């Protein structure tokens, strides 16, 4: 399936919420465990520009189609951050540029793929490393898409306004998935060496989106909130199945493994939200 970049760029827009009644959050506020997850997602979205720089260290940004996508994608993700921060704001949680800057200063953000580049060293010469980035990006976008859909399903009955916003965000994530997966598929198919490195990279180093920028407790909270239980596990297996269909990545179950490692299981628990899940 080809990705129509002209159509994508022309349709690209900031996710909108001016028609949604955010006053609803003041009448019927979101519970703390949901706000905690939203705060995490908001941070992840705002940090996209930091992920962008990893991508740009490969020469692939000179390809017009990639440059065009990255421009729009980066802005769409920025607006996901703005949308979620507008929801948080209605609950007295203020996420502004200063707070984000403080976080980035504290983080000392590193290229997520640095360890891979180091372990392969000069073996990477002549390799289309963008293939690895694209596979990695596809895994992240599939995860983001699943996370928003899941949160919308969990909260939809009590908070339809939130669910609508999350669905709009997820719709854009679906387009991101299409781009990354198409790119990954083509680039991996072309090179055995790229397939080997991508497989190794994802198996050894991949972690849930946001796990490099958030405290481990926060990662566990969000993953538990969204994916603990049989419904969640079904979704997670779905993400893994998508990843495993990329050339060279057959049989990988990186998302399921990363949840198991954090004690998040497929077992249905009593619907007792918050610390209980986080402590698992």
């Amino acid at each position, binding site marked *: 399936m080809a990705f129509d970049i002209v159509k994508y760029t022309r349709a690209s827009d900031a996710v909108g919420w001016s028609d949604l009644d955010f006053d609803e959050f003041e009448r019927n506020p979101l519970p703390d465990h949901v706000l905690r997850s939203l705060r995490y997602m908001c941070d992840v979205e705002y940090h996209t520009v930091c992920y962008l720089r990893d991508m740009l260290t490969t020469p692939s940004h000179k390809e017009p189609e990639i440059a065009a996508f990255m*421009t729009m994608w980066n802005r769409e993700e920025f607006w996901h951050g703005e949308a979620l921060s507008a929801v948080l704001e209605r609950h007295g949680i203020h996420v502004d540029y200063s707070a984000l800057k403080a976080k980035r200063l504290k983080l000392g*953000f590193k290229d997520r793929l640095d360890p891979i580049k180091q372990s392969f060293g000069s073996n990477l010469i002549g390799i289309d490393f963008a293939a690895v980035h694209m596979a990695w990006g596809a895994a992240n976008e599939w995860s983001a898409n699943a996370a928003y859909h899941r949160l919308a399903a969990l909260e939809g009955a009590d908070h339809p306004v939130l669910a609508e916003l999350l669905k709009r965000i997820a719709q854009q994530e679906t387009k991101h998935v299409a781009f990354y997966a198409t790119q990954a598929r083509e680039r991996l198919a072309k090179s055995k060496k790229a397939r080997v490195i991508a497989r190794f990279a994802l198996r050894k180093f991949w972690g849930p989106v946001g796990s490099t920028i958030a405290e481990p407790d926060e990662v566990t909270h969000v993953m538990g909130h969204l994916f603990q239980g049989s419904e969640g596990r079904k979704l997670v297996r779905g993400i893994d199945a998508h990843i495993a269909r990329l050339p060279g990545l057959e049989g990988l179950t990186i998302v399921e493994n990363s949840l198991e490692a954090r004690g998040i299981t497929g077992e249905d628990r009593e619907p007792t939200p918050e610390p209980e899940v986080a402590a698992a």
Partner: protein
Amino acid sequence: MTTNDETTIAPAATAFDVSEFARTAKGFHRDELDLEQFEQHGLEPDAARLLRVLRDLERSTMARMRNLLVTATHKDARVTAFLTTWAYEKFWLADALDAVLEASRAEEDLPADEGHHRLTVSERRDRRGTIRRAISANFAGPQIVAAHVTAGLADEWITHAAYRRLAGIAESLSSVVETVLEVKDRHIRFFQEEAERRLGESPKARRITRKELLGTAWPIGSVERPAEERSFFERIVFGGAEGREEARGIGALISALPGMTAVGSTIEARLVP
């Protein structure tokens, strides 16, 4: 070693509203363009060639983003929020210029824009790879942001002159140029405000910025361009008496920035063919 740029509090005195800028970003312009007149009348070769250079410069934002983001600039969330929208707006400016060029069918007759790079010592620094840039910029620390916004400002002044020249060569392009300059006006305002504030606050920022400006091939992105096209740009924009006057004006604007007194004339001399 605390410096003003390491504080996490947003500068209270800034007038440029980045959120407002992001909210009101200008995208797709093709509908506002009268492409038919270019289909009918085409474009004269110099105008088309300059248009092509400007399109490619507007398009090179991802390469510029890479150079900025591998440094401490990526930590400044207000600056990255600006850059996110700036890249988006420039993408659509390039698209508008591309639409005009395409409609005029003038590109076929232009000289190829591939060829050797300029091989001068001063430009080796500018052309060096991401890794080396990241390493040296990390020594520079957060003050590198001052150098980036000042370089962005000088670049805007230079491309502004080029757009004015473009409208001067081809009357038919004046409304296109007007659209472009209107979009770029907010870019200039942001860079100018940031540059003046950051340079005013810190001697280290001024030192790093002087070095950055003197080591850059103008306009930004030129190092990647063939020598022939760059000579054409300098000749058409800054050649002749009028062009020299433009260059002098830009040199004066740069010199008026805090700590840049000696830099303006050097850049002026480099712009003039």
